């Protein structure tokens, strides 16, 4: 508990975390049947070190928003900025973890984790970061193993280490735990919280799991069906590490279900 209070009182430093600002963002895809709008005037601000979760119906445009935030695609209209600078291309300070671990099968776990440093040409100087990242996710004993020898949870941990080794200022998580069994999932939610609190990066998480969003995030943003618009925001003002039985969180869960039109299933 002491540690928790310490962390809570610490101001987020802009050195390790980015301020992300999304303004009047709209996006269309060219399809054979014409332009398909997936984002409609989205405005979202992520404070340095903040953990924001996005919830919304399947296919509404959440992953698209994340790709734009990562700089993998240019937005059709509106602006995205990172610490005041427009986001125009991918950058190692904003790393995405996808639902599939997408480890490179021809590289050992260690070489997979080293990918970012190698791509940036700093592996020689910064090699120690690879082992540190492996240790952070508890995979130090599997460094020389190939991805096909890993379980689903271990593979996703390796993907997390591959992201963290870059010291991202924004960690973008697209349903990172979506394909894991429920026990591994709960375990990794706690690990994710611990890693975020320890490293201090800003985090933008997409999930389909309301409890996951409430367990992890400081703010939960609800999207409409496609084209995605923000329909509501919930502040989750609870200290970490959180408890799944927390009454405030249970009430929030009810509210969110209502908001998404699923209140009757409560």
């Amino acid at each position, binding site marked *: 508990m002491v540690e928790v209070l310490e962390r809570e009182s610490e101001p987020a430093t802009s050195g390790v975390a980015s301020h992300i600002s999304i303004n009047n963002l709209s996006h269309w895809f060219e399809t054979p049947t014409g332009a398909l709008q997936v984002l409609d005037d989205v405005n979202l601000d992520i404070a340095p070190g903040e953990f924001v979760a996005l919830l919304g119906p399947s296919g509404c445009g959440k992953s698209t928003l994340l*790709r734009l935030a*990562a*700089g*993998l695609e240019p937005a059709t209209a509106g602006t995205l900025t990172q610490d005041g600078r427009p986001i125009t291309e*991918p*950058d*190692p300070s*904003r*790393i*995405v973890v*996808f639902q*599939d671990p*997408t480890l*490179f*099968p*021809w*590289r*050992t776990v260690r070489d997979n984790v080293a*990918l*970012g440093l*190698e*791509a*940036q040409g700093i592996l020689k100087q910064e090699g120690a970061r690879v082992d540190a990242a492996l240790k952070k996710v508890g995979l130090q004993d599997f460094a020389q193993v*190939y991805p*096909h*020898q890993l379980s689903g949870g271990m593979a996703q941990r390796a993907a997390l280490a*591959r992201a963290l080794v*870059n010291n991202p200022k924004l960690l973008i998580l697209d349903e990172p735990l979506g394909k894991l069994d429920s026990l591994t999932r709960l375990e990794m939610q706690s690990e994710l919280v611990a890693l975020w609190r320890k490293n201090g990066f800003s985090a933008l998480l997409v999930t389909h799991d309301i409890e996951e969003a409430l367990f992890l995030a400081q703010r939960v943003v609800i999207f409409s069906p496609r084209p995605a618009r923000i329909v509501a925001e919930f502040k989750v003002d609870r200290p970490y590490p959180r408890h799944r039985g927390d009454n405030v969180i249970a009430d929030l869960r009810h509210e969110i279900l209502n908001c998404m039109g699923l209140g009757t299933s409560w």
Partner: protein
Amino acid sequence: MSVMSSAAILGQLPIGATRQKSPSPAVAAPQVSRGSVAPGTAKAIAASAGDFRFYWFGLFAVAAWLALGFIALGIPDKPAGFNDVWPYTQEFGMGALVLSALWAVLSVQAGFRRATGVFGRIGAMFRYVAPWIVTIGIFLAVWETLTAKTGVLEPPFFAPPSSLIDIYVSDYARLAESAFNSVKLLLEGVIWGAVIGLAVGVAIGWSRAINYWVHPLLRFLGPLPPTALLPIAFFFFPSSHAASVFLIALATGFPVAILSWSGVASVNKAYYDVARTMGASEWFLIFRVAIPAALPQVFVGLFMGFGASFVVLVVAEMMGVKSGLGWYLTWAQGYAAYVNMYAGLIVMTIIFSSLISLLFSVRDRVLVWQKGTVKW
């Protein structure tokens, strides 16, 4: 029979010894094999002697090669054409008898079913190849009988297996030189073809502009058999050697290019996203993502290209290059020296199949990461 009794003695002796040393010989055995050869082998035998069962099937191998030896040595050659007797029949027969004795020894060795180390591996290998040894022995015996001994199959088109020894001894220099020239020419062409094919395949898989121009050419000209270009190539190139290198490279390069292209085109797009967010340059995306991901397909192309290159090599050597195994075959045909032709064909088979095996082991090394996922 002395073989049997010594085996029985070996079978009795070490059981007590193993019991004294360790209560669990099954656990102790694997450690033993790491030791130096001689004591390690002794211990390996000792540890496994409790499981000794003579390898009875080995006796079929002994019998087949014994029969081969007796046929070669005991039955006189039937005079045929200008040969009274075939050369090297004695040596052939003696060789068969020696091998027969070797099979007998190995049948004992293969009896130690649990032996480890080199000793155990040789025994296991003998158990594995024994059916083939039997078959080859019978095949050679029938061959020798039908040719040298009865003359059912007549010269010059047929010759006994023993006569091949004659060719390998008397025409050694010419065969070796031909083999060397063939391998040299082949590798020259194959390496050029593989490198250029890979470069072209990756380029059309990567760049839309290159794809626009090169892909139709590849689709249009690719199906043309390189051998059809042989006469033109001999005319346009300064030497028949250069023309052959070009055609072999073409034969290898086409499948390599097509499969590298399809390999690069089917790379999971998420791999690029991952690398790009981590700051990868275009160079990195090509050489560290696209090509490694495409390698399994590239190897399929290499196997196909290798096969095609053999055809072109042999035809080119038969048609214009004045050296190599293809040339040796036509040369032998010109003199109606059919035994030389068989000898040449056997050398060719060994070389080509060795090259393919070599490629397999290179692939297994390069694609270790695939182990357990895909295998062909």
